[in-house]
């Protein structure tokens, strides 16, 4: 194979949380990108994939390791690499034309040339007639088109896209994707390669030649797959579905499972600082009900769940993870299977469900158990949420710690394990004895 355009060598990135703790977000990333490739980085939210993208662009420095762009190490924002943002990142006080011109202005080009090239880019990306509009006058899809025009007008070698379609509705996103593929396939740009981050398996399969599946906590490369389908790709094609299935299986199999494939009864065990999934009890119950319905007989293919509940993996995986933590269901090889405990829970009435949930919560979620024990030991059965927050901050970033605590509080309130006063931040036992 030819020389790689981008090469990542042992990239590691950690952020500081609190005073002493370091949180590792990217671990040992090695990756090569070649001429003519569209590569997707696929992972759950918070797996560090956006951070990786910024490291490639030279916008963030890795803690260790190096990035090579056409053989030269990158330090600082790299010319020739353009980026498109999930949030569009347009300057709200500049018109479409001024936004697009910005990169050319930074290159110091004369006004005439800037104008000409920008108008051409605006034309190419389908923004004709909106040159003098301000971003706020445009819909999300049009704003992202400005993002693309701004990135492409400088004739980049590599295009990086950070979840470029996830802030858009489905139709708008599809439309933009096909326009982009069109530009790429007809070689209307000077791009040698495109790298994009996504949390949608379908999107990755639709566009990419290669899919890099990411692990979370810390982010690392799980596997690197080729997508051997011809363009245009359709998600009605059974081969498309096979590819989706293959990735689902990969993403739901724990790495250690691969070594002991027969041991299907092994459940996950978590510690007190575990990054609990953001799942609501009602959603989880809904998923269990679907699983337990007569037509599914307790076992479903995950892509099918995602389809029938119209969830993407960022919504679905937290639910399956909670089910696994509580041992209400088991996920393996792209399928989810209800357990005896799960069946007992879902077939119980509302009060009985709460009782069962509280038993399992105490048994399998150490954080919930810890909060409960602290409250029970306290003479007045009360505690401030800050106490638990500072405990969690030893394991997680500040915002994640808050998220995890509010998640466990929601579960605990549902289970009537403890009560919570939002205004004072005081946790207390539901029924002090």
């Amino acid at each position, binding site marked *: 194979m030819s020389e790689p355009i981008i090469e990542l060598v042992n990239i590691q990135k950690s952020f500081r949380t609190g005073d002493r703790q370091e949180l590792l977000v990217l671990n040992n990333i090695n990756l090569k990108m070649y001429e003519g490739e569209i590569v997707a980085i696929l992972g759950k939210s918070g797996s560090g994939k956006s951070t990786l993208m910024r490291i490639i662009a030279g916008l963030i420095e890795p803690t260790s390791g190096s990035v090579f762009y056409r053989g030269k190490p990158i330090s600082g924002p790299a010319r020739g690499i353009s*980026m498109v943002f999930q949030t569009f990142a347009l300057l709200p006080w500049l018109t479409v034309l001024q936004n697009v011109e910005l990169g050319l202005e930074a290159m110091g080009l004369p006004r005439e040339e800037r104008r000409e090239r920008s108008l051409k880019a605006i034309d190419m990306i389908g923004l004709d007639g909106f040159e003098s509009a301000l971003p706020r006058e445009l819909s999300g899809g049009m704003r992202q088109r400005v993002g693309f025009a701004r990135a492409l007008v400088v004739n980049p070698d590599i295009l990086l896209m950070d979840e470029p379609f996830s802030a858009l509705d489905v139709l708008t996103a599809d439309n933009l994707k096909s326009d982009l593929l069109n530009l790429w396939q007809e070689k209307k740009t000077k791009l040698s390669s495109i790298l994009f981050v996504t949390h949608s398996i379908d999107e990755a399969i639709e566009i990419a030649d290669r899919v890099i599946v990411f692990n979370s906590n810390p982010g690392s490369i799980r596997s690197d797959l080729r997508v051997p389908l011809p363009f245009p790709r359709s998600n009605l094609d059974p081969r498309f579905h096979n590819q989706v299935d293959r990735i689902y299986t990969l993403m739901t199999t724990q790495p250690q499972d691969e070594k002991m494939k027969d041991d299907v009864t092994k459940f996950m065990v978590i510690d007190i600082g575990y990054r609990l999934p953001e799942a609501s009890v009602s959603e989880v119950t809904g998923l269990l009900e679907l699983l337990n319905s007569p037509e599914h007989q307790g076992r479903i293919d995950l892509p099918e769940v995602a389809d029938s509940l119209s969830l993407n993996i960022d919504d679905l995986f937290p639910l399956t993870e909670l089910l696994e933590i509580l041992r209400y269901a088991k996920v393996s090889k792209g399928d989810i299977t209800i357990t005896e405990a799960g069946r007992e829970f879902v077939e119980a009435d509302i009060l009985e469900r709460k009782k069962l949930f509280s038993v399992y919560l105490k048994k399998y979620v150490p954080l919930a158990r810890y909060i409960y024990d602290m409250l029970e030991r306290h003479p007045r059965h009360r505690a401030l949420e800050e106490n638990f927050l500072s405990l969690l901050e030893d394991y997680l970033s500040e915002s994640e710690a808050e998220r995890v605590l509010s998640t466990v509080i929601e579960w605990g309130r549902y289970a009537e394990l403890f009560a919570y006063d939002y205004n004072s931040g005081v946790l207390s036992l539901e029924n002090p004895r």
Partner: protein
Amino acid sequence: MVWDVVFILMGVGAGIFLLAAMIENISLSELLYVIWLGLITTLRVFILIVICSVIWVPIGVWIGLRPSATLIAQPIAQILAAFPANLFYPFIVIFIVTYHLHPDIWLTPLMILGAQWYILFNVVAGASQIPKDLLQAADNLGVSGWLRWSRLLLPSIFPYYITGAITAAGGAWNASIVAEVADWGNEKLVATGLGAYISEYTTKGMFAQTALGIGVMGILVLLINRLVWRPLYVLAENKYLME
């Protein structure tokens, strides 16, 4: 309700009393003189805001873009903002007397000692609110130097800066009453300005002149707010606010 009526009656009564006292005691030439003094103080406030902005906007942006610096700078600036200006009188008076400097110019900085921090606070807050993606998008496009200031940083902080500048200007007007006259021991320095006028007649206990001075100051502040700050504020809200 009852209190509203009482207050209104008190206000109207005081107004009539003062107006009567003013018509009796104040000549037209004095009125023009007081307006002239007001314009001098206006010029002072304007120059101070310009100078402070030139100093504090770049520093504030620098601090605001660095979260660790912001954490250190905020409490320090808060303490400085609470520091009373008249504690500086001895130094300033000795300085001016020793070097035979003109009080019209060298007393002026006292007016802004406390108020300048509002500009710094707000600019720091504004800069720390700039979305990371915008900064990174600019970096990615190679936007640097003056282009970065003019296209990204200054517009981003503009609404915050305006809020700070309005507050600082208000504070400077207020402080002119104590800052245009400074005494320490036997030395007394007086600058030409509306603040000094008000201060002088307040000390003498002369109602009509004091009321005239405060009235002119009130009207000037109101006019400047309407004609300068208000339009800038509207511009900030409409054009430069992040969504």
